[in-house]
């Protein structure tokens, strides 16, 4: 695991409504993500408290590791299609990965 520049990828983290899970998964696949990881979450933001109690008001937290271009393409797509009407935040950061080829679709 050397620090060769090519091993640094982007980690895109999305926190959004559980109701969107199926859609998100479809969109991610279509936009070229090689994989994703989802955990259940709860939280608060501009659209109020979203606690894990019942299905309609729960969040999920999605992580996608990919190259910068893909990350920005996905982020732009989500921003256009969901940002206005759904509880959603998008975070982007750098991560170093082992075997970068695993993260190419």
């Amino acid at each position: 695991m050397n620090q060769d520049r090519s091993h640094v990828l982007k980690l895109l983290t999305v926190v959004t409504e559980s109701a969107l899970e199926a859609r998100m998964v479809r969109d991610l696949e279509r936009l070229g993500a090689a994989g994703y990881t989802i955990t259940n979450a709860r939280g608060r933001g501009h659209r109020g408290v979203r606690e894990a109690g019942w299905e309609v008001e729960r969040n999920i937290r999605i992580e996608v590791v990919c190259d910068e271009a893909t990350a920005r393409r996905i982020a732009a797509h989500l921003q256009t299609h969901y940002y206005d009407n759904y509880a959603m935040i998008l975070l982007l950061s750098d991560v170093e990965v082992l075997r970068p080829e695993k993260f190419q679709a």
Partner: protein
Amino acid sequence: MDPIILFFLLGLAAGLAKSELKLPSAMYEFVSILLLLSIGLKGGVELARQPFLALLPDILAALALGVFLPLVAFPVLLLLGRFKRADAASIAAHYGSVSVGTYAVAVAWLASRNIEFEAQMPLLLVVLEIPAILVGIVLVRGMGQQTRWGEVAHEVFLGKGIVLLIGGLLIGWLSDPDALASIEPLFFDLFKGILAVFLLEMGLITASRAGSLRHYGVFLIGFGIAMPLFGAGVGGLLGLALGLSPGGTMMLATLAASASYIAVPAAMRISVPEANPTLSLTASLGVTFPFNVLVGIPLYWRLAEFLHALPGGG
């Protein structure tokens, strides 16, 4: 008092007092899945005993009811309530559809009084879930191609609630009655206990809406009480017209009075995302559900009795 109502009040009180009580979400899902299956199974068992064709008038009437109610609610919300078009349509769709929780409480209410009702009620419950969703979407989008109807159909017919209700109906219908006896301890004997746990959680959920209730004010409260009363009237008259028994008339009134909080929110979130879900859930969960459970159900029984006592009322 009826213990299941007290469970609801316990949840409500605990929530309003900001108690630490919280049911794990898997537990909430477990009891709702069991409730949906139980209601479907019960209905299927009864349906198996009668010719299907005889039910067609009831089914058509339910479809008409599900189209009519949101069309009445929509202009009221738009003009009187001054809601945005999408919000008015979404709330209207919630009230045109039905609440399985309210239905279950009504079933338990009648059962504890040994009042019979028609076997097709669970079927009408399923039928009534759907048309209001489509009406709500059309009210916002028109009939145009803007709406991805395929996705809507998927959301509506393959949502958890509908699949479990219809699945239960079919299983109850197709099963060997003797073989069913062996699954009755879980699905029938535990029904009211499971319903009690469900209502405990519903009380907590209702309490969590108190904040938005304060925020969105009196119109929503007024609408959340007036609309079920109007719906109950229409449903009761329709029950009478269909020749239902007093119990069946009361059930149809209750269905018409109830407002969805599972199937419709999910479908609206996908199909009319610009509608604010807090508005419709606050009305449906924060006002109408407790109103129906605490006040409405006994009232709708009085209504059914009154209608059946009318000259020519059956």
